């Protein structure tokens, strides 16, 4: 059995150089997916690059009115960051739904995204919020929309040697907020049957001026629902608008049948959750 090399570099450049030199290197942030996959025999990388000694990947900073959240910062650290939670409650509550208290001590936004699960709880709210993935690689730095990073179940668009360093969350306008809801068959410790994230902005008159609705676990990747946003923008969230959100969300689903839910069930629940998450995001936005 091949020997695994372990490195814990102190800089992004060193991490990129290590990954670029290896054909089967893996980034280790919290390890809550990687170690499980190694244990199950699904993966045996030749190189593990532990990125937690790189300050930029673990910090949460306010910048230009928004936030730069390190890709390896733990869910617990996100939950304890009062300013981040106030500005981006949907992003934080999505991340906080990942696993138990113990998992929260390790699991990260970067890992949740790059693991590529269609049911990743932190991803829909990142996409809804317009988050940008800050990526470093052998040819330098680049930025990508979060939705462009995951291309299918377990598949990501990063080139060899590239890694997600951090996420940029934009400045929040007034009267703006977000929410994420997940449905699972019990109250904790399960994988999403459906997830729904909504990001909304209102004008002073209470009319919705910007909206994004994103679903998880109902297609090979997270699904943006433009028809739901179109139903919200210009409305004051009348019942007719909320019904249109639910219908658009259900129509956007392309789910699988599995032990957690049937196709029909996921389609139905997606509409219900999208509507409920819209109401929660709106309540938060109007009180901002």
């Amino acid at each position, binding site marked *: 059995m091949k020997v695994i090399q372990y490195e814990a570099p102190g800089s992004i450049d060193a991490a990129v150089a290590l990954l670029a030199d290896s054909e089967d290197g893996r980034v280790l942030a919290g*390890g809550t997916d990687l170690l499980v996959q190694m244990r199950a025999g699904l993966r045996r990388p030749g190189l593990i690059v532990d990125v937690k000694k790189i300050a930029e990947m673990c910090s949460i900073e306010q910048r230009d009115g928004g936030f730069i959240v390190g890709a390896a910062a733990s869910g617990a650290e996100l939950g304890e960051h009062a300013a981040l939670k106030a500005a981006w409650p949907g992003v934080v509550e999505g991340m906080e739904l990942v696993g138990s208290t113990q998992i929260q001590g390790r699991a990260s936004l970067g890992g949740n995204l790059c693991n590529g699960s269609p049911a990743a709880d932190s991803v829909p709210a990142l996409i809804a919020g317009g988050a940008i993935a800050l990526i470093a690689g052998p040819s330098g730095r680049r930025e990508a929309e979060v939705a462009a990073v995951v291309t299918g179940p377990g598949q990501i668009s990063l080139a060899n040697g590239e890694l997600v360093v951090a996420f940029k969350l934009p400045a929040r306008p007034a009267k703006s907020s977000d929410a994420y809801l997940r449905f699972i068959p019990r109250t904790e410790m399960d994988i999403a049957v459906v997830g729904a994230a909504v990001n909304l902005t209102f004008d002073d008159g209470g009319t919705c001026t910007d909206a994004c609705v994103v679903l998880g676990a109902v297609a090979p990747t997270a699904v943006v629902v433009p028809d739901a946003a179109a139903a919200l923008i210009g409305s004051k969230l009348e019942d007719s608008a909320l019904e249109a959100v639910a219908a658009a969300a259900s129509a956007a689903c392309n789910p699988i049948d599995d032990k957690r839910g049937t196709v029909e069930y996921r389609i139905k629940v997606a509409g219900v959750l999208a509507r409920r998450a819209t109401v929660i995001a709106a309540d938060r936005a109007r009180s901002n």
Partner: protein
Amino acid sequence: MAKHHVTTTINGEPAEFLCNVEDTLLDVLRDELRLTGTKEGCSSGDCGACTVTIDGRLVCSCLVLGVEAEGHAVETIEGMANGEQLHPLQQKFLEEAALQCGFCTPGFLVAAKSLLDTNTNPTETEVRYWLAGNLCRCTGYDKIVRAVMDTAADMRGA
């Protein structure tokens, strides 16, 4: 390739060990350091039997590589009592019979201590959510939750 030499702190004492990259912190604790109070249940982060803290943060030691412990402070169940003096949670678990087979108990105790260290007055809901990652296959949850609540009340009164 030679094993990695790791220098760390365990239960306040300096410790060092040799391990392969794929050895988890749980493997190292049990097989190298003979700290067998930390239990192996699922080895996939679902059951919490292997719960420890690293730099005060609650984690599953089955999902941490031994090499990652370098330079960090690990606390295990063996560090919970002060000599012969049980921690109030340990004492309460005994008094209220908050254990049956006992296999999940170290993980529950480490996790509960971590909660009470930051929240001296948790609600029952907070206790149940905090401990959602600890499974008791004897299903003795009510007594466990009650013992944590009662310990918190005692410690507030002390």
